[in-house]
């Protein structure tokens, strides 16, 4: 799922990720882009996660954004929601640091999705 390109070209890869074992018909489309930006020599990684509703995307954002990155330097991560989609953007100095952060995030994202699946849908506000 991770492709590292030379010379700043984009490589786009669509991945289907099962939401949970109990609802095997639900799939999440994730678009991941990696590029190496020549001008400041940072690695970038983008993730877009569609949710079944705007409300659930907003819930995911609020659950995943409060905690700071464990590693203080060498990585930034920004989360945002537009409509049904949660987007995440990383910049990192080294591939190893990027890998750890993205991997951690995906574990937490899975946990949010499993929780939404097991204890959702959200109550009406």
């Amino acid at each position, binding site marked *: 799922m991770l492709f590292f390109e030379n010379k700043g070209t984009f490589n786009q890869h669509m991945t289907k990720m099962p939401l949970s074992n109990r609802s095997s018909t639900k799939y999440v489309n994730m678009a991941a882009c990696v590029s190496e930006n020549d001008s400041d020599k940072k690695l970038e990684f983008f993730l877009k996660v569609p949710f079944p509703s705007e409300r659930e995307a907003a819930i995911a954002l*609020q*659950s*995943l954004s*409060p*905690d700071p990155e*464990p590693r203080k330097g060498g990585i930034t991560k920004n989360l945002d929601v537009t409509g049904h989609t949660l987007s995440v953007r990383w910049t990192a100095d080294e591939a190893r640091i990027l890998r750890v952060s993205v991997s951690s995030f995906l574990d*937490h994202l899975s946990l*949010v999705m499993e*929780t939404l699946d*097991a204890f959702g849908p959200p109550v009406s506000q």
Partner: protein
Amino acid sequence: MPVVIGFEGSANKIGVGIIRDGEVLSNPRRTYITPPGQGFLPGETAKHHRGVILTVLQEALDEAGLKAADIDCVAYTKGPGMGAPLVTVAIVARTVAQLWGKPLLGVNHCIGHIEMGRLITNAQNPTVLYVSGGNTQVIAYSERRYRIFGETIDIAVGNCLDRLARVIKISNDPSPGYNIEQMAKKGNKYIELPYTVKGMDVSFSGILSYIEETLFAMLVEITERAMAHCGSQEVLIVGGVGCNLRLQEMMGVMCKERGARLFATDERFCIDNGVMIAQAGWEMFRSGHVTELSDSWITQR
């Protein structure tokens, strides 16, 4: 009468508990146990918690005979503790709080232990000895805050015992401290120097007894000093190490000499659990505090 659910997972125990007006409705818990000679690391511990937390949450609701709609607020451990496990638990707490449309309460783990100890034992205003794998503090309530009167200057007493257990490869099941205590009971020689070589053989249970006696005597001394300072006539022991009967016995002797009362809880509440977080969350909620989602970040300290 608000019903509060509490999530705890700052170390290797993951617990979810539900409380209503001082009555424990459920308090299931799972422990991540490593093989002998190994401690628990943050990444693996977080992975363990991720794998079971939703099951334990459902168990908590089922045992209490409640539906999600019956919960009024969601408490979770904000800190202190290990980062990765704390995040795992906070994420689930935030998600269900939003799903159920209920306020979130970020609780201090240490205060969770103290509030639960007070609830269970009915101690009014005790000097508290908080001893566990991660914490060693003598705490008293003074001028509207819990204040630390004394603490370890390096590692927690439970950490010391856990490391000893690792070195001599004592089993971590159910916990290293419990197994040390069982072995130490069999030691009947108090040895002044911790160097026990008998010819070609060595003896370790004597060392464990020595270590327990010395560590616990140190804790009794600083607790006594805090009591003298505050003019307190009650001692409450909380935290996993508080399960140790020898510690309770030694503290009891000191209390009797001073005419003070000793309070302690059993392993359900000494060891990290979810309902202590729920109880502390309830105290927060009824004094009007809630935690905004943007402020709900976890802290290792």
